[in-house]
């Protein structure tokens, strides 16, 4: 009995939240639907941990869906690479659900809460499916499941601010164009290889020379995924979507949604198109590297001039995505590992920052702008401490998780690209201190509004914030877990040749 459960873990992690999402929608009681969602995300996280342990001993698990063996059937792959985003998505999913308990009812009407939780689970299951599947077309389906669910989640913010509808609409249209680009690419690759299994595509591509269909297919696939991952010039949907979504949804999306697409990007670049090395290295050096540098500075500068805090954090996310793609674009083993390290650390940092801002907006009952923050640090010390620690982690100061990722990123940049790139990284992190300091200054040094004095922090709100802040410090002090699994991932992804 237990055997059946253990053998089918790779599919259970996708189907448990998928099936529960259908069930949660039918529950009319909002408290009950919260409990069901919490239980489901907890089970998903447990399955992820079990899979992590299995990956440590078997290195790669291939699961044939419905016993149709790959390359003909759909294959689910759990290995050192895909386990990282799986742990991030399920872990942050659990923490964000825990945090959403009081936040959701404060922003949404009672009748829409269970529907929101249904979409919430659907988005989580879509994202996990996206990273587990080893089939190019199945990947598209999960891409659309996750993005349609996130669009509907963003649109739920319409009760707070009607701009959420426009944000959701733009997200939907741009996302759908991106996904269609990906499908065109898959079609072209299918035309020349005759297979949809990602591993099989690699072995078929190894037998042929570079041709036009391959280049076009590669381009379409990469651009499609870059739209979903919000890589710099294709990021326009992101700030609005994160800013106007319900706060709990912002936490979930900011910490997980782009990470899954970034993982797919890494996998397409380094593993699927491994045989056509010329095209990949051209794309990395001449397209992704300059775009990442633009993203680092563009995102940070836009954040400096932004007054709305949620939008500010979304702009800073674009800069952080820039660091991750920069790490990928250098293309050595240590830099790709740095990319994965920053991927998991950024999920912790942004999750923490969005949670802190959400708690503030919960207490002051208003949209959080820079003026509204005035003096709140004195009224809510715990939230403020967590906010400072996460901010320092974002800027990359020592003893925080952000420091570890910056350290590895700069180390790998120096060893392969020289000093100029590491200088750019340091300079843009220094710039990010400007907007972080702006917030901390108003929180602590400005006078407190009279009506905010009565604010009392509730443990039910700050417990998950404390937990995520603790993780930020813990992984800053003892980073061996993240660093080791990231290096395992990059070793597996880049293979023996680099």
């Amino acid at each position, binding site marked *: 009995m237990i055997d059946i459960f253990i053998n089918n873990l790779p599919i259970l992690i996708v189907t448990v939240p998928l099936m529960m999402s259908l069930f949660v929608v039918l529950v009319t009681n909002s408290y009950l639907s919260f409990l069901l969602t919490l239980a489901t995300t907890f089970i998903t996280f447990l399955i992820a941990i079990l899979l992590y342990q299995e990956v440590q001993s078997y290195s790669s698990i291939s699961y044939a869906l419905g016993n149709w063996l790959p390359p003909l059937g759909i294959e689910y792959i759990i290995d050192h690479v895909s386990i990282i985003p799986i742990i991030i998505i399920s872990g942050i999913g659990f923490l964000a659900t825990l945090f959403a308990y009081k936040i959701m009812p404060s922003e949404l009407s009672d009748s829409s809460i269970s529907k929101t939780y249904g979409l919430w689970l659907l988005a989580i299951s879509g994202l996990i499916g996206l990273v587990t599947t080893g089939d190019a*077309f199945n990947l*598209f*389906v999960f891409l*659309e499941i996750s993005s*349609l669910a996130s*669009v*509907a989640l963003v*649109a739920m913010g*319409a009760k707070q601010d*009607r*701009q959420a*509808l*426009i944000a*959701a*609409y733009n997200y*939907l*249209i741009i996302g*759908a*164009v991106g*996904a*269609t680009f990906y*499908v*065109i690419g898959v*079609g072209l690759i*299918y*035309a020349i290889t005759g297979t*949809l299994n990602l591993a099989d595509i690699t072995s078929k591509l190894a037998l042929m020379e570079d041709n036009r269909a391959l280049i076009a297919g590669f381009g379409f696939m990469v651009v499609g995924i870059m739209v979903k991952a919000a890589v710099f010039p294709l990021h326009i949907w992101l700030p609005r979507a994160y800013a106007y979504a319900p706060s709990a949804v912002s936490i979930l999306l900011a910490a997980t949604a782009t990470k899954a697409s970034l993982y797919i990007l890494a996998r397409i670049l380094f593993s699927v198109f491994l045989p056509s090395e010329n095209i990949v290295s051209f794309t990395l050096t001449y397209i992704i590297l300059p775009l990442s540098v633009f993203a680092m500075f563009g995102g940070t500068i836009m954040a400096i001039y932004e007054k709305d805090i949620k939008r500010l954090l979304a702009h800073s996310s674009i800069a952080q995505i820039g660091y991750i793609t920069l790490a990928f674009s250098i293309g050595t083993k240590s830099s790709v590992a740095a990319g994965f390290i920053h991927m998991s650390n950024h999920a912790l940092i942004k999750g923490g920052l969005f949670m802190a801002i959400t708690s503030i907006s919960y207490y002051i009952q208003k949209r959080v*702008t820079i*003026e509204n923050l005035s003096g709140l640090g004195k009224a809510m010390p715990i939230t403020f401490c967590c906010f400072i620690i996460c901010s320092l982690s974002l800027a990359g100061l020592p003893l925080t998780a952000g420091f570890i990722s910056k350290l590895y990123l700069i180390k790998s940049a120096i060893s392969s690209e020289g000093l100029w790139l590491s200088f750019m990284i340091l300079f843009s992190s220094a710039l990010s201190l400007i907007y972080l300091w702006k917030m901390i200054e108003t929180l602590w040094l400005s006078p407190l*509004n*009279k009506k905010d004095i009565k604010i009392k922090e509730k443990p039910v709100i700050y417990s998950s914030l404390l937990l995520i802040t603790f993780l930020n410090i813990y992984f800053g002090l003892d980073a061996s877990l993240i660093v080791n699994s990231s290096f395992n991932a990059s070793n597996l992804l880049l293979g023996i040749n680099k």
Partner: protein
Amino acid sequence: MITSAMGIWNYWIVFILMMIGLFIVIGRKNLLKKIVGLTIFQTSVFLLYITLGKITGGTAPILTENSSTIYSNPLPHVLILTAIVVGVATTALALALVVRINSIYGSIEEDDISAHDLIDYHDQNNTLKKSILQNSK
């Protein structure tokens, strides 16, 4: 030249539809027309897949006693069946959003909507300034 161009007739149609669809999505300011453009764009991709699966002289993949029958590739059709379902879901969600936008903003023209948002933004700023003034008094 002409015969070779005619031989890939379907691909020309795919290409033209793709460009028309993408142009409408980018160029039109009307939210509903954007959805029409998106649907045309997606349909062109469906046609691309179906064309890939067709083999000259091939028939539907049903087993017959004649072993020399040439079959068209059924896999792209199955894939496109899935893609159509995804496309319907996308269109449905987009239309639902447009209905909500129309009922709240009273318009589905992008320019009108951004004008509304701009007015909102200024109103917010004005009330903010007032509240700050009151606080400082």
